C-alpha cells in the first residue's frame, strides 16, 4: 500500500478519464460528424477530465505524504507517558522517535526496546494503518468526484481548450519558478552565513585587509594562528591568474575564430572545429594535474635556464593552463558571432574592392564586436570561478603580489581549503568561506551586468 502504487493508480485513472472525457464530448456533440458543434477539439475535453481527476488527487497525495510522518509522530509522542519525554533534549527525543519508527517498520534494532517504546510503536503502526486507509479512501473519492464533475460539465459550450491551456501555463510557471527560487535560496543561505561572519569580523577588515591567515587559535597559547581575514590578496591572486588566462585565451581564441570563420576551407573547418571543442570537454581536474605536473615544472626549469626564479606553484603556470581551458569558449562564441554577420555586408565590402583582411578588420569585426565582448566577459567569469586548476597548480600562500612568477592563491582555492575536512560551522574560519563566496558572486554578477550593458550599447549603435 505504498504511495507510489497510489500515484500509479491516479495516473492510470487520468488516462482513463482522458478517454472517457473525449468520448463524452463526442457524445454530447452528437457523434464524430458533429464535433464542430464543440467549442474545442474533443481531445481538450479529455485533458479537461483528466486534469479534474488527477490534479486534486495528486495535490492531496503530495500534501498527505509530506505531513503524515509529522502528524503521526506528534500523536504518538502525545500518547507516551509524560515523564518519559519531559526531560529529553532535542537530540534524545529524535533518537526516541527514530527508535519507535524503526520498530514500527520492523527494522532490526541493536538493543532491546523498552515496553513503552514497544507500545508506542504499536500505536504508531495502528495510526499509520488508519492514515493509509483514509488516504486511499479520500483519493478514490476525489478521483470519482473529479470524473463526475467533468462528466457533468462537458457541454458543447465549455471552453475546454482555454481551461486546459491556462493550467498548462500555470504548470510552466511553477517549473520555471523552481529554478528562480533555488537561486534565491542559495543566495540567501550564503548571505545569512556571511552576515554571521561579518558579526565576528568587521567587513572593512575583510574587504580592505591585506593579510589573509584564517587559522584561529583553539587554545590561548597556540602560535601562528592569529586569524586575519583580509581578502585583498585572494582577489588580487584571482585577478592575476584570470588576467594571465585572458592574455592567452583572447588572442588565440579570437584569431582562430577569425581563421575558422573566414579563411579556413570547409574541409579544414570540419575537423578543426571539433578538435578545438574537445578542449572544452576535458575535465578541469585533468587540466589541473597537467598544470601542476607538466607546465609548472617546465616553467620553473625554463626560468632557471634564463636566471629567473619561478616558484613551482606559480601564477603563470596556473594562468596559462586556465587560458588553454578557456580558448574554446572564446573561439567558439566568437566564431558563431562572426558567422552571424550577414553575407550581404561581406559582399558590399568586396564589391567596393576591399580585400578580405580589410573586410574582416573594418566591417565584420565591428559588427561582431558586441557578441565578442559578451563571449570574452563570459570567459572571464568562468576564469574567476574556476577552481580545480588553481587548487592543484596555484598554491595556498596568500601573497599580495603582481609578479606572475610567484605563488598566489585565489578565492576559490581558499573556499575549498576552508571547507574541506571536519569543520565547525560556527567559527569565523569556516564562515569566511561564505563571505568569500558571496563576494565572488557579487563580482561575477557585476561583471555580467557590465557585459550586458556593453552588448546592449553597441547593439543600439549598430542596428
Amino acid at each position: 500500500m505504498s504511495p507510489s502504487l497510489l500515484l500509479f493508480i491516479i495516473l492510470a485513472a487520468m488516462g482513463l478519464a482522458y478517454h472517457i472525457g473525449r468520448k463524452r464530448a463526442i457524445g454530447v456533440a452528437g457523434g464524430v460528424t458533429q464535433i464542430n458543434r464543440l467549442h474545442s477539439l474533443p481531445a481538450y475535453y479529455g485533458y479537461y477530465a483528466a486534469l479534474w481527476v488527477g490534479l486534486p488527487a495528486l495535490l492531496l497525495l503530495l500534501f498527505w505524504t509530506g505531513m503524515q510522518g509529522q502528524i503521526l509522530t506528534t500523536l504518538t509522542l502525545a500518547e507516551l507517558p509524560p515523564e518519559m519525554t519531559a526531560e529529553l533534549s532535542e537530540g534524545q527525543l529524535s533518537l526516541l522517535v527514530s527508535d519507535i519508527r524503526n520498530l514500527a517498520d520492523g527494522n532490526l534494532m541493536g538493543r532491546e526496546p523498552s515496553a513503552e517504546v514497544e507500545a508506542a510503536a504499536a500505536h504508531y503502526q495502528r495510526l499509520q494503518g488508519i492514515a493509509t486507509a483514509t488516504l486511499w479512501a479520500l483519493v478514490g473519492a476525489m478521483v470519482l468526484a473529479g470524473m463526475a464533475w467533468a462528466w457533468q460539465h462537458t457541454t458543447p459550450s465549455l471552453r475546454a481548450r482555454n481551461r486546459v491551456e491556462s493550467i498548462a501555463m500555470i504548470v510552466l510557471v511553477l517549473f520555471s519558478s523552481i529554478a528562480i527560487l533555488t537561486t534565491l535560496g542559495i543566495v540567501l543561505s550564503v548571505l545569512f552565513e556571511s552576515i554571521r561572519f561579518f558579526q565576528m569580523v568587521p567587513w572593512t577588515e575583510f574587504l580592505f585587509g591585506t593579510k589573509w591567515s584564517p587559522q584561529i587559535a583553539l587554545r590561548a597559547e597556540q602560535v601562528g594562528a592569529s586569524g586575519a581575514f583580509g581578502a585583498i590578496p585572494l582577489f588580487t591572486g584571482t585577478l592575476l591568474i584570470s588576467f594571465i588566462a585572458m592574455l592567452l585565451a583572447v588572442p588565440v581564441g579570437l584569431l582562430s575564430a577569425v581563421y575558422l570563420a573566414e579563411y579556413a576551407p570547409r574541409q579544414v573547418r570540419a575537423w578543426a572545429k571539433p578538435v578545438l571543442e574537445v578542449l572544452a570537454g576535458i575535465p578541469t581536474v585533468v587540466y589541473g594535474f597537467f598544470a601542476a605536473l607538466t607546465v609548472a615544472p617546465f616553467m620553473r626549469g625554463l626560468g632557471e635556464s634564463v636566471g629567473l626564479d619561478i616558484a613551482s606553484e606559480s601564477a603563470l603556470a596556473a594562468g596559462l593552463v586556465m587560458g588553454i581551458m578557456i580558448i574554446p569558449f572564446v573561439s567558439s562564441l566568437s566564431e558563431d558571432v562572426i558567422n552571424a554577420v550577414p553575407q550581404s555586408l561581406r559582399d558590399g565590402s568586396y564589391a567596393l574592392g576591399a580585400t578580405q583582411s580589410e573586410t574582416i578588420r573594418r566591417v565584420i569585426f565591428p559588427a561582431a564586436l558586441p557578441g565578442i565582448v559578451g563571449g570574452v566577459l563570459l570567459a572571464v567569469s568562468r576564469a574567476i570561478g574556476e577552481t580545480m586548476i588553481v587548487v592543484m597548480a596555484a598554491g595556498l600562500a596568500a601573497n599580495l603580489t603582481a609578479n606572475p612568477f610567484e605563488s598566489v592563491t585565489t578565492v576559490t582555492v581558499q573556499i575549498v581549503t576552508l571547507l574541506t575536512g571536519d569543520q565547525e560551522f560556527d567559527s569565523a574560519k569556516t564562515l569566511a568561506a561564505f563571505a568569500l563566496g558571496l563576494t565572488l558572486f557579487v563580482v561575477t554578477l557585476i561583471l555580467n551586468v557590465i557585459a550586458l550593458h556593453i552588448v546592449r550599447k553597441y547593439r543600439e549603435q549598430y542596428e
Partner: protein
Amino acid sequence: MNTTADAIAVKPANLTADHLAQDQSTTTTVGEISSPNPRMRCRDINVWYSANHAIKNVSLDIGQNEVVAMIGPSGCGKSTFLRCLNRMNDTIPAARVEGSIKLDGQEIQDKSIDVVPLRARVGMVFQKPNPFPKSIYENIAYGPRIHGLTNSRAELDELVETSLQRAGLWKEVKDRLDAPGTGLSGGQQQRLCIARTLSVSPEVILMDEPCSALDPIATAIIEELIDELRQQYTIAIVTHSMQQAARVSQRTAYFHLGDLVEVGTTDDIFNQPKHKLTEDYITGRFG
C-alpha cells in the same frame, strides 16, 4: 576566348518553347548583342555552380552611358551574369566562370588581374540594402579610405558630400552624418549604398534588383537617380519588374534558363519581341 563573335545571330521567330527545350545547348541569341561604344564586352560566358550549368554561352556588350536591363524569370542566370562582371563569383567557392570579359579592352577573367582595382572600377549595388553597421559618414568614407583616394580629412569630407549629393541623399542626411546608416529608411539605405559605390569613382555600376525591397515611392526616386547616373556611368541592372526595365533602360536582355534569349533596344523588346519566349514573358504568360 572568342572575340570575333560580334556577328548577329538571328533565330526564326516562330521557334517555340518546346523546340528550345530540346535544343538548349545550341541556343543562339536573337538580336544585336554588341554595342557601338562598348565599355564591357562579354563573349561566350559559361558559369557552373558545382555541376549546375547556370549560364550558357552568353555574349553581351554593355555600352558607354547606357543602361542595360536584364530581365527574366527567377533562376534564369541574370544575377549570376551580373556577378561575373566584377568577379563577385570569386567569393563563391563552388562557382566556375569561363569565357572572355573585357573592360575597356582589358581581359578581367585573367588570373593576373587583381580584383581589388577591378571592383573599384566596376561597382555593385545589391538587392537588399546592405549598409555597414557604421555611421552614414563612415559608410561612404570606407571605400575611399581602403583605396587611399584622399589625402586629408577635408578632401574626404568633400568626397563624402559629393557622393551623397550624386545619390540624391545629401539633403536628407547632411545634419546627421554621424547617425548609424542602418537607421535610415529602406530607400535611403539603398541610396546610401549607391553613394557608397559612387565614392570610389567606378566606371561601371552593376545593380542587382536594387528596388526589389523598396516601396513604390522609394523605387521611383532610385529610378530617377539611375537615369541621371547614366550621364556619367555605364550601368547594368537586373530587375524583376518589366515596367522598371522599360522605364530606366536603353537596351534590354532577356534571359531564360541560363540562356541569353534575346537582346535589343528596350523599345523593340517590349513592343516587337522577336522570340516567342520573350514575347510570352513580356506579355505575362509566364515568369
